[in-house]
């Protein structure tokens, strides 16, 4: 499964590189160079995020997590997870590693879903650094407002579908 995903991703890279090459050698070189620079810049973050997540999950006392966002925490737990997710600053390494740490420490699956969904929709730093400067302000507010019910809907669907 893991190998299949790696192969799939690299086939996509190969196809895109070929397509870029057909459009010109410069495009291929630019794409490859920018991709590599991007990767190099991400490296320290990934290392810290992944290694950190393992220790954070281990260090967190389960007794402290479960009453707040445990499987029996219901709507309140979902609301807490949603607020936590929306306020989490940082990219996918941070968002997903905290979600995974929550799950390992005994949080309920629907609550983790609410957390991931809220983080994906709001991630504070992404909103501030990228969305506000790049989009009209009203558009940002509109999107933020209509996204409010989504983490709760996701948690409700998760409860309806049953545990993974």
């Amino acid at each position, binding site marked *: 499964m893991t190998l299949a995903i790696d192969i799939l*991703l690299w086939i996509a*890279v190969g196809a895109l590189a070929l397509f870029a090459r057909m459009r010109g050698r410069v495009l291929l070189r630019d794409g490859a160079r920018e*991709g590599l620079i991007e990767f190099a810049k991400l490296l320290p973050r990934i290392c810290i995020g992944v290694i950190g997540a*393992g220790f*954070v999950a281990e260090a967190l006392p389960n007794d402290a997590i479960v009453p707040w966002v445990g499987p029996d925490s219901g709507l309140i737990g979902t609301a807490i997870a949603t607020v936590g997710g929306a306020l989490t600053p940082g990219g996918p390494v941070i968002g997903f590693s905290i979600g995974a740490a929550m799950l390992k420490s005994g949080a309920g699956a629907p609550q983790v879903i609410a957390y991931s969904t809220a983080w994906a929709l709001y991630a504070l730093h992404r909103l501030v650094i990228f969305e506000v400067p790049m989009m009209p302000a*009203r558009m940002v507010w509109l999107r933020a407002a209509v996204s409010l019910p989504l983490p709760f809907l996701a948690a409700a669907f998760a409860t309806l*579908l049953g545990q993974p």
Partner: protein
Amino acid sequence: MTEPSPPRHRRRAFDWSTAVIAAVALGAAGTVYWRDGSAHFNAILNSDFVLLGTMMPRVLAGCLIGTFVTLLLPREMVARWVGHESGFAGLLIAALFGIILPGGPFTIYPVAGAFLAVGADAGAVVAFISAWTLIGYTRALVWELPFFGTHFVIWRIVEALPLPIIAGLLARMVVKAGLARIRGER
């Protein structure tokens, strides 16, 4: 017509949010070492490195896919398919684009801005951004899978499928009710 190139994103290799995470990680590592001993500490460190090893090739592939698509994407053509008259199909198409477009916020928001500039409605733009953040496959494959495992990720994505459309419809209702006015200028 020359297309404005998307703003170069200036992501530094290290910033404050990473520094905070690093501090938290160090604190947690110290706690585990002090509380559970070095054998347990090494076991966790080892499994973290294994996870890191499986992620590396994917992250590199994700970065390359993101930059190539940004360079190759015919932005204007895409935007025409999600214009004001596009109706429910426009929402579906916008969500689909959000799912298949790889890359980070530095790719997505310029595209969303281009959508608005060529007359896409607010609902389509909301559906597009929501689909990218919630279902986007590069993010799921590269980042989410190693942390959560295939089963959980598929389960989460199934639950997320209707959400971009719901958000898009809500945005249209808000605009129609006169609570917000979105024009195509940036």
